[in-house]
């Protein structure tokens, strides 16, 4: 009986319209809130993704900003202090521009000459201090999920 009563009332068009407005309102509030979250979080966390050339070209404008830069690990010595976990190496872009890198943390297994490196961290004009290293090995193995990629975070 009560079922029926509710049924009748819910089909009255005024109630339906009121409900629809309520739902649209609720939906828009959610959408706006999510949009707001996305925008603010994007602004506060986005980092530029540079090539080495772009990084140098930007000069002091990007000093001490968290950025991402990519290049190939050079054939120069990869210097790793296993005691203090200080790793020094260089990366180079296709135009031959080099970037010296320091990373405080364990040496990634896949770090070797010619590995494609994506680094996240800060540049002070001389030296890039990496927080994060993402490596892809030379195409000896084929790409598959996680296979040739390695990601290591700095400890300090």
């Amino acid at each position, binding site marked *: 009986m009560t079922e029926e009563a509710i049924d009748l009332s*819910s089909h009255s068009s005024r109630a339906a319209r009121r409900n*629809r407005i309520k739902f649209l309102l609720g939906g828009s509030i959610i959408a706006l809130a999510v949009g707001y979250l996305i925008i603010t979080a994007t602004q*506060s966390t986005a980092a530029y993704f540079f090539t080495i050339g772009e990084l140098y070209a930007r000069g002091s404008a990007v000093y001490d900003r968290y950025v991402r830069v990519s290049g190939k690990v050079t054939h120069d010595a990869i210097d790793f202090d296993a005691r203090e976990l200080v790793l020094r190496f260089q990366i180079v872009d296709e135009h031959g521009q080099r970037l010296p890198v320091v990373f405080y943390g364990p040496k990634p297994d896949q770090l070797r000459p010619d590995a494609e490196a994506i680094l996240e961290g800060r540049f002070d004009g001389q030296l890039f201090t990496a927080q994060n290293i993402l490596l892809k090995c030379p195409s000896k193995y*084929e790409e598959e999920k*996680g296979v040739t990629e390695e990601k290591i975070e700095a400890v300090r």
Partner: protein
Amino acid sequence: MMAADLGYVALSLAFVLAISSAVAAWWGERRRAIELILSARNSVLAVAGLLTFAIALELYLLLSSDFRVMYVAQVTNRAMPAFFKLTALWGGQAGSLLFWSWLMSLFAAAAVSGSWRRAQILIPKVIVVTQLTLAFFLSLISGVWALAASPLRAIGLAESASLMAEMETLTPFYQLGFTPADGSGLNPLLRHWGMIIHPPLLYLGFVGFVIPFAFAVAALSTRQTSDVWIRVIRRWTLVAWLFLSMGLLVGMWWAYGVLGWGGYWGWDPVENAALMPWLTGTAFLHSVVIQERRGMFKVWNVVLIMITYSLVIFGTFLTRSGVVSSVHAFAQSGVGPLFLGFVAATFIASVILLFERLDSLRSEHMLDSLMSREAIFLLNNLLFLAIFFVTFWGTIFPVISELLAGQKAIVGPPFFNQVNGPLFALLVLTMGIAPLMPWRRTSLGKLGRLVLWPSVAGLITTLGLLAIPSLRQFAVLPSTQLHMVPVTIFYGLLVFVVVVIGQEFWRGIHARRRTTGETWLRALLNLIGHNRRRYGGYLVHLGVVMIALGVIGTNFFKVETQRNLSKGASFTITSPLTGSYTLTYEGLNLHATAEDVRRTAATLRIAQEGRFVGLIQPSQDFFIPQQQAITVPAMRHSLAEDLYIILAGWEDDGTTATFKVYIEPLVNWLWIGGLVLVLGTAVAVWPARLEEHRTALAARASGQPVAMESS
């Protein structure tokens, strides 16, 4: 070279048959020619047969180390054990696409023959959709695109022409002009069972979602948009979802146990690619219940499954095109543009179809009230879609920013955590409330009574946790008290959900015992057995709660440090949950663990609260043929936490060594929760007994909602 040639022929034949089957089904439906449709169905079966044959050939080539076949040389070498040679089938691009196609063909064959009687009117379009999808994948690995090279060159598009010509090498049967002495072998990181079963599980999930999409398209185009298609695909969807969930979990487990960075999820584009269809698929799984029960959300459901399908294809594309992690890789292979083209074409086509059929998707009811289960389900769906959108936005942000601002930029894990974290918390809340909400409408007072005890329990948890001073200092985010608040709220929500679920079980058992006089255990088993979907669903929710427990624990209370130790020296690390560990470095030793692997292992003594509890050996394996070192983390598991140690470096003789040590609070609840989730889904998927089926049908026919059955 017989086998490789045969394989090539089988793939080409399968490609032609898939297309002709789609055409025959389409034409047969238009002309109402049943013999055409029958022949289309037979072609579907034949394609599955041909691809099974192709798979057998590929396995034979892999096993026999026929390195003249490029794929075999890429993913195997002579030293590999036979088992790994077989699993190398999905260890590379060409093989995994073949594997994908094979699964697709089997699923299509099963769907077409399984639903032949139940949903005959839908079958032709199901054939069209599945076979066209399959044909696209087969076109990538059968070398057809290479045929486009010379016409393209003829009209002056040299660059596209060479891209297409390269596609030839993507066949898993492509033969080199010479026979290499040995292959490159599988990456050592892959020699782990987690990585062996992870891709097949994901593919099963991905491919599984193509079937519901095919039925949705068929239902739309034939205007059979009642709930027949929803019923046919219900089990398919759940099974696909189960495999996708398992694939994600196993991937996380592997990343945690093998990669040695102390984490399991990095919001990497590749991970997101698998998560996104899971999110929209989970939303779909929930909202179809509303269509079944109330005939509502019809457009919404179709939209969800369309998005899920596109995401499945997009995900397959994202994982192999390299478009996101480095845009440079985009132009290197013809696969990227082709995939993107296919995703765009199918998406646009389905949207057009949807708009043409909007009139047949009218809702049978209106939402009655915000205070109803329908409304909560809608909210749950919005949240899933919001999380999907956030993930999508973050994943393609490099592309967006380059298009809009001319400078590539990225967002990392902090972005995803900041935005998705609160959304996940809200989702947990809806997960708790939904089972309590009556259909159609209820009053605040009634709802209040229903949620009273769960809310009290949740609140006590939150306040109790806030009161523990020792917990505060471990909040990893800048350690102000403020950050404890969201964590404790989250834990309060989890307790809320658990109490709701417990209450539901208790009520059910109690009712059974009163009417049947069964024992507790019997009543519990019968309760689940007679309402599999409902109580299976609760088990899944329980699993999700456990997973959330682990996720929050590891995100907020993880402890990490690094130490350089001389032989005999020790240091202490304090855990947020179980007191302190004292680790003493005993020494280093080198030994062979396999013919081609040398292991350097450090031995540490572990004392907990001063009492010796065991030894632990973090190590590094050196794979001689690949000249590659792999760090092998060592773990000491408990329900409270993992002690996770990495050997980061050592001075040659081992007099000192450097360790990275993590404490991962509650991490094992992730895996336990995963198992519970799988178990719950299995319960829900298990075919119901015939009599229940009849009762449900009878109840439906009489227009009465089935009181006991629910999500």
